[in-house]
């Protein structure tokens, strides 16, 4: 069963087609990056998934139901579409309370969500005094109120400083490690590359590619960086598997055109300990730009 299922989702505004025949599914426990340049149709797609906009054709299901018909939606799905959806004169805590009341969650849950996003100290201040990063976290707190199984976040890294991005990444990783599912959109692949397991790339409203991050890297000649106390043995083992290698200047081995699973498997079979195994993402942004420019009409 897919947690999120989009089937032929299409949205037209007059003559403009914002989203065209978009089909994909998300499995439980995954973090998916929903990527595309600004104006690619990401937000429109998320609005349709979340019942805020009606598809022109096709359908979007969450836990096998259209969002609008999902019983207990707020307890199963947490979502943030805009980082700025607050009344400036309301305190952060009261903003959450206007939402928690609607679904009969206790104030203790509000305080718990504020603690999760580390906003307890600012909770009783009016939102107009919040930085963009604080607003992002308050939005995230609203999504977490119902302790959901699925998180949908539109451009959650916008306005976060590097520390905030790292915090968000760790947070989402631990969220997904509990078997829960995350869908985050971004127009910058690098922003989410270290967070997501798989990517959906769209451009001009159409799906360009749906793949794991590793395959995306491999596909354009990406490499895997591996460190080991027995580098020569590992290099030899990889060569036997027809995997080309080069040595990097920091005493690591770069395995070219492969995936980290493959390198890990080879190392395991060869009985070589591995101290570091990273799919190199240095060229990811180029991949992304290439993919999203290929479909220019």
């Amino acid at each position, binding site marked *: 069963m897919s947690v999120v299922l989009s089937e032929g989702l299409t949205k037209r505004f007059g003559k403009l087609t914002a989203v065209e025949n978009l089909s994909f599914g998300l499995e439980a426990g995954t973090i998916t990056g929903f990527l595309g340049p600004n104006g690619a149709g990401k937000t429109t797609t998320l609005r349709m998934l979340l019942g805020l906009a009606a598809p022109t054709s096709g359908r979007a299901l969450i836990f096998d139901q259209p969002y609008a018909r999902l019983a207990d939606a707020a307890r199963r799905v947490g979502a943030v579409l805009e980082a700025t959806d607050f009344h400036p004169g309301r*305190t952060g805590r009261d903003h959450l309370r206007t939402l928690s009341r609607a679904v*009969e969650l206790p104030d203790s849950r509000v305080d718990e969500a504020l603690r999760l996003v580390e906003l307890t100290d600012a909770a009783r201040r009016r939102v107009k005094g919040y930085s963009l990063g604080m607003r992002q976290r308050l939005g995230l707190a609203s999504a977490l109120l119902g302790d959901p199984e699925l998180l949908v976040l539109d451009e959650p890294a916008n306005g976060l400083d590097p520390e905030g991005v790292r915090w968000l990444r760790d947070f989402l990783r631990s969220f997904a490690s509990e078997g829960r599912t995350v869908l985050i959109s971004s127009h910058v692949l690098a922003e989410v590359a270290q967070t997501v397991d798989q990517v959906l790339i769209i451009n001009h409203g159409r799906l360009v590619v749906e793949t794991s991050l590793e395959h995306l890297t491999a596909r354009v000649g990406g490499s895997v960086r591996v460190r080991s106390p027995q580098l020569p043995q590992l290099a030899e083992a990889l060569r036997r598997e027809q995997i080309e290698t080069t040595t990097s200047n920091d005493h690591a081995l770069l395995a070219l055109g492969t995936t980290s699973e493959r390198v890990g498997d080879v190392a395991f079979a060869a009985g070589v300990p591995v101290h570091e195994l990273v799919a190199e993402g240095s060229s990811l942004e180029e991949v992304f730009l290439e993919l999203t420019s290929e479909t220019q009409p």
Partner: protein
Amino acid sequence: MIAQTKAELMKLRSTRTTLGLVLGMLALITLFGLLAGLLTHAESLNTPENQRGVLGVGSLAGVFSALAGVLLVTGEYRFGTIRPTFLFTPRRSRVIGAKLIASLLAGLAFGIVGEGLGFAIGYVCLHARGIPLVLHGGSITLVLLGTVVGVALWGAIGVGIASIVRNQIGTIVGLLAWGFVVENLLFAFVPSVGRLTPGEAQNALSGLTTNHLLSAAAGGAVLVAWVVALALAGLALTARRDVG
């Protein structure tokens, strides 16, 4: 629906806007109450109709009740909170329904406070000037009840109109223009139509009997009909339209 209504009441309570509306209402009613109670000639204050006007000056609270109802909807679209609101409660009819109930309750409070103050000012003015009350108990009860109920209903009218228009400035300007200009012109020049407007229906509900006004009961019925019609239109449009 009860939970959602609590959420909507929380929205009203948790910003200073509502407090501003209450203060504005108290100031305006005090001003108009004193003006009407002190500056009207004593002999003209001897008529039941004019005494109704002075004692029912709290009907001005209807403006503020309506504004509270409007802001409860347009504020959500203006600041984008409509998105989390609908994400938490995807059944939009439940949201609008709760806003209608919350605005009726808030309107009731506006009405009780506003008419309480207005009636007190009017009563004190009459008493201080030695003008005898010519209204009997039933009429006074009608002034009080009719005004409070009318003010409460204006809250729901605000929610209904705002759900149709959505834009804050547009709704407020339209509502004020309608209430203070169009209704008065209609009633002055085509009273048979003008008396069916919500404002004149509220006047009738409070027991005012100026020529052509409906009876109190009919006025109440017309006002309720406005509430129902606007609420149904607002519900239908809100269910159909995309949220940006």
